């Protein structure tokens, strides 16, 4: 059993000079290709017992009152490259509040802190690979890169599949946001097709009446060929 190799030119290259921090933080050697061994084919498992009832509700999991801002549901499915669901995938998310402000000691943006918004959430996929968060639609925010760079509204996602070889961190954007196409971090991704895959779609059918709009964001992790026991020593 092995995971499909990552195609070159799909993920962002390590060095993307318009994203200035990548200049001093990008390895100059190409990565060394290694075989997949049990170290890469296994990964930590996180049981359902890990989670508190509000872990996936960023509107309510930090403060005594509900957080301020547009109430949304972010939901979707985690699948592999063959379209098979990935059950028990751990998803951790973090984001700015409705003003575009993160709750972090090193954050200096003048956007207001929301006393009821922490900005983190986590959940685990069900047997069909489905997940759901409730949160606030984050605001756009300026960041020190070029003289006037702004990030499009986004939610950061960290994902564990079943193997460490599938480990992934990415960001989710919102359908229709023109800022996506001017962002030096988004533009680190070589193809428009790959960017489109990170844009959540507004799903009017999934709207919670008188409560929250819904955005669908499906995530694809590396797929694998063969069965568990193939190629075992």
């Amino acid at each position, binding site marked *: 059993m092995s995971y499909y190799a990552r195609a070159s030119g799909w993920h962002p290259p390590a060095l993307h000079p318009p994203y200035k921090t990548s200049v001093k933080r990008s*390895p100059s050697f190409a990565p060394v290709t290694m075989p997949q061994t049990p170290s890469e084919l296994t990964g930590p498992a996180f049981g359902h017992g890990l989670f508190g009832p509000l872990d996936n509700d960023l509107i309510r999991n930090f403060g005594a009152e509900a957080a301020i801002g547009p109430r949304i549901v972010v939901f979707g499915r985690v699948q592999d490259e063959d379209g098979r669901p990935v059950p028990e995938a751990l998803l951790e998310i973090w984001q700015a509040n409705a003003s575009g402000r993160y709750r972090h000691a090193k954050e200096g943006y003048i956007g207001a802190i929301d006393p009821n918004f922490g900005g983190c959430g986590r959940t685990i996929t069900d047997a069909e690979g489905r997940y759901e968060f409730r949160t606030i639609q984050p605001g756009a925010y300026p960041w020190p890169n070029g003289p006037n760079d702004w990030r499009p509204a986004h939610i950061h996602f960290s994902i564990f599949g079943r193997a460490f070889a599938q480990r992934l961190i990415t960001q989710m954007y919102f359908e229709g946001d023109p800022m996506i196409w001017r962002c030096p971090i988004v533009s680190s991704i070589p193809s428009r097709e790959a960017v489109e895959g990170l844009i959540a779609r507004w799903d009017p059918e999934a709207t919670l009446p008188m409560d929250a709009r819904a955005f669908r964001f499906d995530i694809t992790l590396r797929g694998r060929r063969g069965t568990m026991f193939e190629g075992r020593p």
Partner: protein
Amino acid sequence: MRFRESASQTAGPYVHIGCTPNFCGIGGVYTEDLGSRMITGDAKGERITIRGTVIDGAGMALRDAMVEIWQADAAGLYASPEEARGAADPHFTGFGRRAGDYETGEWVFETIRPGPVPGPGGRMQAPHVTFWIVARGINLGLHTRMYFPEDDLSADPVLSRIEHRSRIATLVAKAEGQGAYRFDIRLQGPEETIFFEC
């Protein structure tokens, strides 16, 4: 293959909010940060510490990195449903996660010395710890391995494939006393750490 993998994006400078919220002052949401304790009971094996920094091309330690490790238990088994060779030590998770110190960028893992794990064709690999590093400015998480300085690495089936033999030293920790290791990860420069794709 019918779908493409979701493209990676940088974890950014605020990865702590999502991954180590208690570390960055967001208390009360999760009981403890994921990966903060690898030894959860009377785990078998020698207790060790692994400390280090991630260093950029200017020689500065990153103060916003998140480092994860994944390793076998003392018997060489992974605590994973995907582990086909047997049941791992119930008191050892194998998974650790740390944010670098805000001032120095240093991180420390308290773990156990891993046992050997088979590799391609059943050839045993030298004991190692898998590392995964993300931070602002890193567009795709960096995958590397740490090996132990007292081990014979000459027959390791992964290291034996590396053409630049002189670079293998970048994957070997330095001993700093009994059971204490330092593993600094260099993103660029003459001692740039080997990073893998698999």
